[in-house]
């Protein structure tokens, strides 16, 4: 059973690249941790998309399995990240990432 979609693989990859760069762009310019994490999520999804696209190209389940691992990773990462964000907010009263700069010199 097919979904009657036939597009070149490169297009999906281009989409993944664009999403990935938007995420990276977001991480670089935002100073609020929440927005950085959010753009991080976008980057993760972009990778997932690329994997699933590759799996789809060979019609193999491996792509999807990799996607599932990425999911697990994203879930773990968000859990810890948000715990950190809560601590960060409590200690620095603001969510500006640049406030935490003791580790320098």
């Amino acid at each position, binding site marked *: 059973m097919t979904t009657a979609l036939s597009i070149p693989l490169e297009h999906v990859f281009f989409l993944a690249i664009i999403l990935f760069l938007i995420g990276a762009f977001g991480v670089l310019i935002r100073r*609020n941790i929440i927005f950085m994490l959010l753009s991080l999520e976008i980057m993760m999804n972009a990778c997932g998309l690329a994997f699933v696209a590759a799996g789809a190209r060979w019609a193999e389940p491996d792509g999807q399995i990799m996607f599932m691992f990425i999911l697990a990773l994203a879930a773990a990462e968000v859990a810890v990240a948000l715990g950190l964000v809560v601590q960060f907010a409590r200690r620095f009263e603001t969510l500006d990432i640049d406030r935490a700069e003791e580790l320098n010199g």
Partner: protein
Amino acid sequence: MNLSFFLFYISAAVAITTAIMAVTRKNASHALIYLVVTLLSIAVIFFLLGAPFAAALEIVIYAGAIVVLFLFVVMMLNLGRSSVARESQWLRPGMWVLPAILSGVLFIVFGYTVLQTENSAMIEGQVVPPKEVGTVLFHEYLLGVELAGVLLLAALVGAFHLGRRYLEERREN
């Protein structure tokens, strides 16, 4: 050029625009909502690529659990109206230029590498049923699954500890 062809490009466009919106919003909750829409559009693309199980997971776990978790934290830290003013102050135009250049160049390099591949092939949209995914998952990738389980456990314990100290201090003062 059948329906799924157009569907793919529409959802791709939606994904890109909402991603940009999510990244550039000043209000945290608006950004999260845009993120949800991006995720949904990616789910549609998964479905079109013949990975219905992945699409379902995407919606359930990603859009459902992770973004909701974000929303909890945003609500808890009440990043409402007051933070919007501060946010705009942080997004001074000067900040945009360098990252923009960098990502542009990166885009060119990635694009160039993708176009270089000789055996560019078409995606036929062959559906891979969840049953097949499940069998492969628990045969070749059994180890991967166990490791993912351990990873999640570790994240659980980490998140628990990070949260706990916060509670004690609140109890003291």
